[in-house]
């Protein structure tokens, strides 16, 4: 009896113990291109909240939020296109529902070639057109990204990440990119707990002209685009919430050592259902217009970036409510070395009308001082980049 059990267990274990290579064909085992990247950002934060009928509140903490590590594997396929996988994990914001754990923010498979890219799995959603130069990508989340109408959690990752099937089509010589996606945004119950199951619940279409990084000085207009996102929220008789986004990036100077750029984006969200600003979901479902703009300066010596400074301003108006908020964020980053930075950022946010009442304070100051370490290393690069200078300007080589 025990012997039988042992054999059965052995038979079950065999496929698990066998190395992945031996499970494959007799062809050579090709080592993929391996890219490992990561960023540790650690800041000492001081926050002061001020509001009507509320004592001033001081908060001090050390935040490692947004620290992440990312691994990427690319392989040439039989038809010389490329396929692969990305696995990444992130340390969430302190107020997230899962503060004590890590969040697998990117787990997806992909295929790409000169003219297209397909992603299937969990990753950062295409909620925005341009990136803003704040220390963390969610510092101005409410102003800079299309919000998730399905979440009543204050977990910012629920807005930024989700599962999707995204298809990008590229016209490299015209710098054109069209993106279509079907997304499964994270849904929560009214208490903010993630639901056990939910559907593909949203989709969108983006069109942009975007100049790849290595060619950033080839055109004053670096990026310009429009996008549309639809979420099937089904609240109070409204089936859909729509958001429309437009934005771009312009080189203000064509000077690689003293480089100024301007970044701007506007998001109009139709909202859906009752516009109750007291809950996270209510604010995400409110009709709103959000505008954000930034000026970014980068100073290099001997073609090595030494420090950068940025000023970002954002404004959001909740259209049918007597509510608005705005924020101003100066950011400074000094590079101590390659991939090591000294950071400082001040963020002032002011809320007015019903929003201040709903949130409980109308002014918020946050000062952050910290360090960041980031790196990206590629091993066995036998593939190259779709948008490298050689591939963009001298014909594509597979």
């Amino acid at each position, binding site marked *: 009896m025990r012997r039988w059990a042992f054999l059965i267990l052995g038979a079950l274990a065999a496929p698990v113990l066998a190395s992945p290579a031996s499970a494959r064909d007799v062809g050579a085992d090709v080592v993929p291109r391996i890219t490992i990247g990561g960023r540790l950002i650690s800041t000492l934060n001081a926050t002061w909240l001020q509001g009507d009928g509320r004592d001033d509140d001081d908060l001090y903490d050390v935040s490692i939020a947004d620290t992440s590590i990312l691994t990427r594997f690319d392989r040439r396929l039989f038809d010389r296109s490329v396929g692969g996988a990305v696995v990444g994990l992130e340390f969430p914001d302190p107020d997230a529902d899962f503060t004590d754990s890590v969040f697998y923010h990117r787990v997806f498979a992909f295929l790409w070639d000169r003219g297209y890219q397909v992603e299937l799995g969990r990753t950062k959603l295409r909620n925005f057109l341009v990136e803003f130069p704040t220390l963390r990508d969610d510092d101005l989340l409410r102003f800079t990204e299309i919000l998730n109408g399905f979440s009543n959690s204050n977990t910012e990752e629920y807005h930024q990440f989700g599962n999707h099937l995204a298809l990008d089509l590229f016209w490299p010589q015209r710098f054109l990119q069209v993106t279509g996606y079907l997304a499964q945004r994270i849904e929560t119950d009214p208490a903010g707990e993630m639901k056990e199951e939910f559907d593909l619940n949203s989709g969108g279409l983006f069109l942009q002209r975007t100049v790849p990084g290595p060619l950033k000085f080839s055109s004053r207009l670096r990026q310009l685009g429009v996008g549309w996102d639809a979420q099937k929220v089904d609240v109070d008789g409204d089936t859909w919430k729509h958001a429309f986004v437009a934005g771009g990036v312009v080189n203000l100077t064509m000077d690689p050592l003293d480089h100024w750029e301007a970044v701007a984006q506007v998001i109009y969200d139709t909202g859906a259902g009752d516009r109750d600003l007291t809950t996270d979901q209510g604010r995400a479902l409110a009709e709103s217009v959000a505008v954000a703009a930034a000026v970014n300066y980068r100073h290099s010596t*001997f073609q090595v970036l030494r420090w950068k400074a940025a000023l970002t301003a954002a404004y959001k108006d909740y259209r049918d409510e007597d509510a608005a908020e705005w924020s101003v964020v100066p950011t400074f980053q000094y590079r101590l070395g390659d991939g090591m930075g000294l950071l400082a950022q001040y963020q002032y946010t002011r809320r007015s009308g019903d929003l201040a009442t709903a949130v409980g304070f109308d002014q918020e100051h946050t000062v952050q001082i910290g360090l960041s370490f980031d790196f990206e290393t590629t091993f*066995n*690069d036998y593939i190259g980049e779709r948008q*490298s200078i050689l591939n963009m300007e001298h*014909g594509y080589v597979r």
Partner: protein
Amino acid sequence: MSDKAPEGHHPVSEPPRRTFLKTGLAVAGAAAAGLATKAEAAIPKSPPGGETRFVAPPLLSPSAAPDPGHQTPLPAQGRTIEAPLHGIPAVVEPTGAPRDDQVAYKTFDLDLQIARHTLLPGVEAHMLAFNGRVPGPTIRVMEGDWVKVRFKNRTELMHTIHWHGMDVPYTMDGVPWVTQDPVRPGQTFIYRFQARPAGTRFYHCHFGTLLHMQSGMHGAFIIEKPNDPIRQRFPYTRDYVLILTSWDLNFIREELNAMLRRMKERMLLMELGKLDPQTMGVFRTYEDFQRALESGYMPPYTTQRLAGEGRATLNFNFFAINGKCYPSTENLLIREGEWIRIRLINAGQLEHYMHLHGHQFFIVAEDGNDLPEPIEQNTVRVSPGKTADIVVYGNNPGYWTFHDHDTRRVTNNGIYPGGILTVLAYEGIDGPYAPKVALDE
């Protein structure tokens, strides 16, 4: 200009006879030399009517004698730079050689562009291509000819041309920052020199040499003498040029991209008048360099600028004869009773040990210079930067491989057979076995 004939380079021949051009400058010409050695007795004559044939890389014709099939640069495959930035001379003509009205120059046009080069079916790479080809076209002149090469740099990178193994005026030697400023994007540099000494020589870029020379910037420069003693002794009817190279395609791709990115920025800085010597990494004196370090300049070697894995050593994965890897290499053709000459040029970074099956050959020249006495062997070592000339007699009809005997270089991306492998094939034979194309053993 030196007017001394390069006598010391011709141990096989009699002292060169002197001829005088209209300038009165002496040029070297090789005398017809009767040779009587013990090898000669065994050497049959080549078949009558045998015609001299030159095989790839294609011959570059002088511009005065248009020969479109050979000399026309291939059309550009992408972005090219046709004129230098404002304020930079379009043409640089250094002194150190006679003027055009003093001697009769043979003029050759070389341009440089980035081209997609097919190493063998299924493997393509961006390379730096003289006249759109890898390797660059072959220049073939007579010893003593006055040569003018108009080199136009149509890339965004900087280059020079160095005339390897040739005794040119130092201002024509093509070493950036030592004998000339590098040729700027869109600029034309005119090299002038007298072709000497005779022999198998080559040209290559000397700017960012590790990358540029490997990326395709090399070509054969053959200087013949009127009555070549080697030909008299071994009456060859075909003359092959085989340029041996090794490639780390991943290094080439990463570094070319990185250099292009840096150079695009430098071009912008030049336009803004902000390109200082430190950003270029070029200093007037060693003391200037030391002072720059004290004031915060970080030399690139301290910041590990190499792209990708920051490798200090290359991982060569493709090996080529005349820009092609087996099975895309061209066969060497021979007939029974024919002598052929094979000029081996190592324009790469590795040593190659070329071994011919079924024959003993004579090594007749090394570094382009005739050996005092031919050496009979079947394997010849060709070190980086060296050339070796061998002559083969067709006395064993069949198909015979000729390959690097460091068989790591007889691979394509690690798979044997490939790389530096070709076949000496007898014409007009009907043997019981004929070569196939093998890719995986």
